[in-house]
């Protein structure tokens, strides 16, 4: 097995919440410590799912853990997330989700009614996403150890032979497609915790994105060069990772990035950047310019994909940078999320 050499050094003395927030610290932990320790050549790609070839079949294989507080929130619950998060990681790897393992970590004292509701949510979401639950595990930990319940799901799916995504294919001139408005999930969760007195009718956007991706790949095939679901760390972190991996610049046209009024309002009040807020039911794709219109058409033709738009393009310089360009021509850098998004006071 060839050695995986860390490009980044992990020198933090302890693990903090930021290491799980999907931004810079998470990347440092993964690339600087986890990947070098466990790594083989397959881990090097650090995609949303691992792509493995078994007996001639190209499979995507992934796992994700869900630790959300509160367990239920407008638009969904931990059960929906546990299914959609994992099937979406498969989908953005170009795979049709097929089967799931579900592992439950339950806290002593959890009401069985709550558990049953979440199990039903898992079953319903799996049906909706077209996957079967084929196994899993259950553990119970002491009271006070698990915020009610944690769920880990692992998923597997067959990679569509027409899907050939890799940051290496991304070139200047390519366009950045986004499937819909950003930030709904993150802001919904923030408000559902009840720590801030803001009333909105926002709902989490949790949903499977495979139908949109199926239409996209079906129509333009290898014209799709890269895909990602911008969960923790938001659109900004996903695109910064792409800019770094592909050594390109990404220019976003600020006006075109769809953000709902309520999300924008909450971000204004709390001093947060919508592009750093987590999403659960959206995906980003880089498509070749010659098939851009067809690609957009394909996504928009699927129910739920109507709000898809192009938000920017790939450029050559300044490499490894994401820029946002305002309607009046101001240019600013959009960096990765640092730590957890922390609201400003004034």
């Amino acid at each position, binding site marked *: 097995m060839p050695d995986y050499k860390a490009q980044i050094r992990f020198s933090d003395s*302890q*693990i*903090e*919440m*930021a290491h799980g927030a999907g931004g*810079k*610290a998470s990347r440092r932990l993964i690339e600087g410590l986890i990947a070098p320790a466990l790594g083989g050549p397959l881990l090097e790609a650090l995609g949303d799912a691992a792509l493995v070839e078994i007996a001639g079949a190209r499979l995507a294989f992934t796992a994700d853990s869900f630790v959300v507080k509160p367990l239920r929130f407008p638009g969904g619950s931990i059960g929906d997330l546990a299914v959609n998060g994992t099937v979406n990681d498969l989908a953005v790897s170009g795979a049709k989700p097929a089967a799931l393992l579900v592992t439950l970590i339950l806290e002593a004292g959890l009401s069985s009614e709550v558990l049953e509701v979440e199990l039903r949510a898992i079953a319903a979401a799996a049906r909706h996403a077209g996957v079967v639950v084929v196994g899993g595990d259950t553990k119970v930990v002491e009271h006070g150890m698990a915020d009610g319940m944690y769920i880990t799901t692992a998923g597997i799916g067959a990679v569509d032979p027409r899907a050939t995504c890799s940051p290496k294919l991304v070139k200047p001139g390519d366009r950045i497609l986004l499937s819909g408005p950003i930030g709904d999930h993150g802001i919904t969760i923030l408000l559902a915790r009840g*720590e*801030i007195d803001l009333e909105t009718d926002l709902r989490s956007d949790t949903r499977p994105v495979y139908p949109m991706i199926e239409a996209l790949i079906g129509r333009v095939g290898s014209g799709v060069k890269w895909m990602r679901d911008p969960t923790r760390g938001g659109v900004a972190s996903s695109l910064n990772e792409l800019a770094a991996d592909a050594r390109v*610049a990404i*220019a976003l046209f600020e006006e075109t990035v769809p953000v709902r*009024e309520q999300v*924008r*309002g909450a971000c*204004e009040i*709390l*001093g947060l950047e919508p592009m750093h807020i987590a999403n659960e039911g959206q995906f980003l794709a880089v498509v070749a310019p010659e098939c851009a219109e067809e690609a957009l058409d394909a996504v928009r033709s699927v129910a739920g994909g109507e709000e898809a738009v192009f938000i920017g393009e790939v*450029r050559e*310089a*300044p490499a490894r*940078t994401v*820029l946002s*360009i*305002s*309607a*009046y*021509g*101001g*240019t*600013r*850098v959009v*960096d990765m999320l*640092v*730590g957890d998004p*922390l*609201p*400003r*006071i*004034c």
Partner: protein
Amino acid sequence: MKFVDEFRDAHLIRQAAGEIRRLADPARHYRLMEVCGGHTHAIYRFALKDVLPDNIELVHGPGCPVCVLPMGRVDDGLSIASDPKVILATFGDMMRVPGRNGTPLEHKARGADIRMVYSPLDALKLAEKNPDREVVFFAIGFETTAPSTALTLMRARALGIRNFSVFCNHVTIIPAIRAILDSPDMRIEAFIGPGHVSTVIGCRPYEFICRDYKRPLVTSGFEPLDVLQSIVMILRQLEAGTAFVENQYARVVPWEGNLPALRAMAEVFELRPYFEWRGLGFISQSALKLRDSYAAWDAESRFHIPGIRVTDPKAAQCGEVLKGVLKPHQCKLFGRECTPEKPVGALMVSSEGACAAYYNYALRTTAAAAV
């Protein structure tokens, strides 16, 4: 969004920028200080420099509350949190500000009970919910946040909540502006006046700047058009050779301020004889403490506060940046030892801090200019 979108209209922004170009004398160099951290944030967030002529230099002032808090006060606050009985509550801005042995977030990761709250009232609610614990609110901020701390203390007293106290680090803006005006490095021609602070104190307290120092001040809102309009108003004054206080942000800032808020502050707080500011040193009568009648809720009388004094790391030039003598990237540590992830100085922490704003939004502007 109402009251936001109107102030981000690209056409109007270009118009205002054109007006600034017309007014600015190409033979002159203008140094304007935005006092408030919110303006610093907006200037970078909306890349306003890109629409301004080169001879208008915006200098960042001392108006970010976490940036001006010396490291010793952070350590003092964290020392209270080392008592296992205590829940220390503070704003999100404070969570990443480094003390000598790490930030509040790092102390929390090591087991201290430190919670982020969105308002002091939330800290009071924590005290009600945890009657067997001591909840201490680590209060920071200018006149913008001081009234809500005052109202919370009045409420705590009215409800007789005894397990709640405030570690008060509220500061007042006027003495800081005066310190800058009196500094020998002073080269500022006019001020973009703080918007949020002014909603409380009004515009009158700034009059001395114009009268005694002959510098215009325009109280400004935080949208791109607000800031540009304020610059237009300043340039008109400079051109006419006048210096007075103007209120660009009249839709929010009453000239006389917010009287009930001022009354609440007067009821609860009094001026400290002196207080240390990061970068500016000790400034007399520049900060607030709780009055004796609120001693029962004053963390400084209820807990042993070590009164730690820490000098900033030698190479850190936070003071110079705070006074507007250096630009953030001219600090030797900028972007190397000091980044938003591992900040050395507080200016790199809050998005209102000049260094963080500069790093987050403009770090690669030279490269970006090529795009």
